[in-house]
């Protein structure tokens, strides 16, 4: 424990960084998953093909590779564009925070697409027809009939996707975000205690994933409250 003296605040701030990445990518994952599921269920052939390509590609490629393509790819594209506008610019990139958050969201979003698709299919078609006959628009059916019923069905799988998302945030250190792994590396070079330093990182992740798991359990209980006693 004494090895950690003086490093607690660094760990704290860098844990906040990964939580920020998590929060941002969670929102993006939900949006991507909803778009993907809608595209898969739509009648348009093109939307179906695009959504299928999206899920096949991002479910079959390592997260690390996706991050590397996003970060380094965007860096040379942006630099080339910037150079054509202003030749004095040497280097321009998407900040690792955003490249990383987008990368892991795209990967987990492809899993969420399948989950949401299944959940949308689980909503009783009769309810949607009932909505139609009451004169609700497509958007209103989505907001008041489909989503309130599908999130309950999606929750168990989506809880697992949230855990993957949380654990994937560790990868962003590879493209240079100064987060918790970076703190451990820095602390190691000073204290020469790599095990202690990386083990703390593992414990922090374990604590966060425990809280997430418990929250999902509480949410599931809340979502299924109408089924209690049946």
């Amino acid at each position, binding site marked *: 424990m004494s090895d950690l003296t003086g490093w607690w605040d660094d760990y704290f701030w860098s844990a906040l960084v990964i939580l920020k990445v998590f929060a941002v990518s969670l929102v993006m994952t939900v949006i991507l998953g909803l778009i993907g599921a809608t595209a898969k269920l739509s009648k348009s052939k093109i939307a179906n093909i695009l959504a299928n390509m999206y899920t096949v*590609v991002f479910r079959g490629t390592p997260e690390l590779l996706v991050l*590397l*393509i996003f970060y380094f790819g965007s860096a*040379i594209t942006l630099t080339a564009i910037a150079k054509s506008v202003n030749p004095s610019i040497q280097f321009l990139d998407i900040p690792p925070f955003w490249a990383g958050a987008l990368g892991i969201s795209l990967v987990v979003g492809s899993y969420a697409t399948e989950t949401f698709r299944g959940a949308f299919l689980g909503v009783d078609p009769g309810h949607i027809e009932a909505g139609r006959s009451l004169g609700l628009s497509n958007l209103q059916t989505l907001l008041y009939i489909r989503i309130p019923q599908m999130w309950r069905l999606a929750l168990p799988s989506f809880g697992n996707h949230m855990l993957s998302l949380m654990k994937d945030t560790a990868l962003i250190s590879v493209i240079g975000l100064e987060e918790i*792994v970076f703190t451990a590396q820095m602390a190691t070079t000073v204290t020469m205690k790599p095990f*202690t330093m*990386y083990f703390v990182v*593992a414990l922090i992740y374990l604590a966060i994933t425990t809280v997430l798991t418990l929250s999902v359990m509480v949410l599931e209980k809340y979502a299924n409250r109408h089924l209690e006693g049946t």
Partner: protein
Amino acid sequence: MTFDFYLIIESLPEIFGGIGLTLQLLFLSAFLGLMLAVIFLLMRISGRWYLSIPAFIYIYIFRGTPILIQIFVIYYGLPQFEWIRESVLWSVLREPFGCSVIALSLNTGAYMAEILRGGVLGVDKGLHEAGAALGLSARDRFLYITTPIAVRLAIPAYSNDVISLLKATALASTVTLLDVTGVARTIVAQTFAPYEIFLSAAIIYLALTWLIQRGFRLFEKHMSRYVQQ
């Protein structure tokens, strides 16, 4: 900035060279992981608290932390201890390959144990009782009734897990191993052509994923041959 197809063709043989290492990591960790998974599954369903609690803790820890951190703790972390550097295990733990295999096996073992448990719990109780009525011992019931059915039930989830494992082998490149991702990163560092090289690497992973899925679908068909559709 142009997309250089010639560069792809030029560097493909080099990237292909990494497939060997990727597959070694995959097969070795899948095999060792499965061994671990079976052991921990048996501990978990043994009904004895001094076996099931350690198994639960192992699964909980390895599923709750990122695999990258597990690799780092083992590869960078363990040499901190003098007694590890002097033990016989040091010849394995000194090498990034050994460390990656250990980390990947431990990680996938935790996931696979839960998958197998799902399979075992999915086996109809009536079949078990039928076995007991026929006078089979508990061991025979487990081997001849539970196992074949549990394996069939676990295949879809297991195949997803092998694909996750394939994707996780890419992390071995962070501890200097030259697998497909590692080779690709080296070439990008020399040529600074991320699109061409990383996309080629991604296509290799996609092809491997497809092969794994195909293989497991055939296996599942074989295991379900007596199930009426």
